[in-house]
Structure formats: structure tokens, C-alpha cells
């Protein structure tokens, strides 16, 4: 908590929008709000002015747990050489047809 009363800012929320049923929620941006209800209605007013969504998620920005860019090596690169996870790794004779 800040001791300085004037330094208090409304918390930041991240906004995710599902543009239509069948699609994932996608990050749309962020906004400030005092509470969850305000975050939700603000998200509606700010991010769906052109009917961009059918569903909204708001998450307090401080509740998002993010990986670090420095972890790129240990997180993602070990999977680069595991080509056997991809269908193109396997040779199937043409005669077999589509598989």
C-alpha cells in the first residue's frame, strides 16, 4: 500500500475477447478498473464497440504469471529437435494414400 493517497491508481486488468463461438479468447489489450465488475463493463465499452466479441475475460494484470525471455533456451529450444512429434517426420508409401 502506498502511504501517499494521491499516488493511488486504479489497478490494471488484461482483457481477452472471444470474437465468435468456436474460437479461443484472444488478448485484446488492457484497461484500468477498481473491481472485477467495472473491469468487465469497461472491457465491453472499450474493446467491443464494433461487435468484436461474444465473450470477455478480464484478469488482474498482477495475476498473470509470465515466462521470462531468458528462459527461451531451456523452455522452448529443447523441443526444436524432437521432429518425431510432427507427422512429416514419418515416411508412408504413396500407395497407402492419405493418412
Amino acid at each position, binding site marked *: 500500500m502506498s502511504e501517499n493517497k494521491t499516488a493511488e491508481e*486504479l489497478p490494471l486488468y488484461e482483457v481477452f475477447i472471444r470474437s465468435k463461438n468456436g474460437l479461443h479468447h484472444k488478448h485484446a489489450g488492457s*484497461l*484500468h*478498473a*477498481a473491481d472485477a*465488475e*467495472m473491469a468487465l*463493463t*469497461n472491457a*465491453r*465499452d*472499450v474493446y467491443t*464497440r464494433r461487435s468484436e466479441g461474444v465473450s470477455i475475460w478480464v484478469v488482474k494484470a498482477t495475476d498473470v504469471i509470465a515466462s521470462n525471455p531468458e528462459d527461451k533456451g531451456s523452455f522452448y529450444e529443447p523441443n526444436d529437435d524432437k521432429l518425431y512429434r510432427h507427422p512429416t517426420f514419418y515416411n508412408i508409401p504413396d500407395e497407402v494414400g492419405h493418412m
Partner: protein
Amino acid sequence: MTENEMHFEYLLRLGDNCAILGQRLAEWCGKAPVLEEELALMNVGLDLIGQARLLLDHAGKVEGAGRDEDKLAFFRDTQEWRNLLLIEQPNGDFAKTMARQMFFDCFQYLQFEALLDSSDKTLSEIAAKSLKEITYHRRHSTNWVIRLGDGTEESHEKMQAAIDELWGFVPEMFDMDEVEDAMVAAGIGADVNALRPRWDEMINSILEEATLKRPEDTWSVRGSRVGKHSEHLGFLLAEMQFLPRAYPDAKW
């Protein structure tokens, strides 16, 4: 008044509320307490102007004298306007704007819900479209009244003052007169007097949650139904109507 004249008059009452409240919200442009709220207020304003256009356009057609939405919005003088006195009251601070909005949103919600069954098909269609918008407006203004009422000491005082200041404009919303009676009888209009108990229920529960006191019914003012408005409306119209009046031949 013929039934047709009363029908026209009735539609003006509905449309004028939306036009004037939309105009009042436009005055907030660039001045909202939070940027996010700026967008929210304008969303409400846009809905209201949209409703006003539909209702005034329909009114003009019912009148049959060739007046369109803009003729009706920009070329009627103060005493020809039929919006509620509550609607034309100045914005004041954010608490007063939200109190006015919440009183009206709850009223308009009930009124338009009743208008879904109107025998005037155009009107019932407008009501159906608007009701979705109003449902959101009501949620928005209600939330703010509760937040401000149950927020800080300062906001509580301001919110209570706003409720008190506007309370005397409430009874007019539910008045019946010759026009309202005839429209109810014709199956066109909604019986607003019958809506009062539900409105009271809504308001009581909001005020309770907001830790606000329901004011005593010690005063009320009336007059908009017959064109007797507060002095505020003249200035609002002077500003709003200036261009078309100054250049009546122009097309914009």
C-alpha cells in the same frame, strides 16, 4: 386532441427524453473522471441518440406533416418539448449525472418493457431494440450509484445530495393524463402509474446496497407534459439548435 395527435404527442414524450439525455451526456465529452468512463458515457449517449432518432422519425410519420427527426429536434422551441423535467436537469457532478441516469434507466426499462406489447408495431420494435441497451445502461448507472454511495465519506455525501436534489422530479415520471390514458386504452402506450411499485422496489434495493437514504416525499415539480419546463432547457436548446436555426437552408 384527436387520437392521432395524442399518438404523436406520446411518441414525442418518449423520443424527447432520449434526445435531451443524449445531449446532456455529450456535455461530458473530455471531462469524465476516468478515461474508461469517458467511453462508457458516450456509449450510453450514442444509444440514446439512436433511440431518439427512431422515435422522432416515427413520431414525424404518425403526425403526417412532413417533419423528420431533425425538423422535430432542431425546430421546436422550449414549450413544444415533452421530455421529463428530470432529464433536462444540468449534469452537475458525476454523482448527480449518475443519480439522474439511474432514476431514468430504471423507469425507461420498465416503460419500454411494457411497450413490447404495444399495438403500434414500430414502437414495439423500437422498444425491443432499445431494451437491450437500457438493460446495460441500468447496470452501469446502478453500479456507480452503489460504488459512490458505499465508497468514501466524500462520495457518499455527494451521492446522497444528488439523490435528494433530484427526488422531487421523480413523481412526474409516473403521472397519467389524458394522453397517457388514451394511449393505454388504445393498446399503444404503457401504464406508467402501474410501474411505480416496481420502480420503487428497484430503487429501494439499490439505495439500500449503496447505504443511501431514500428521501422523504416532501416536494415535487411537474409541467413537462404541457411544455412547462425549467429554465435549463432553453439554454440546452439554444446550444443544440443553433446551426440549423442560423442557416435554415443548409444541408449538413
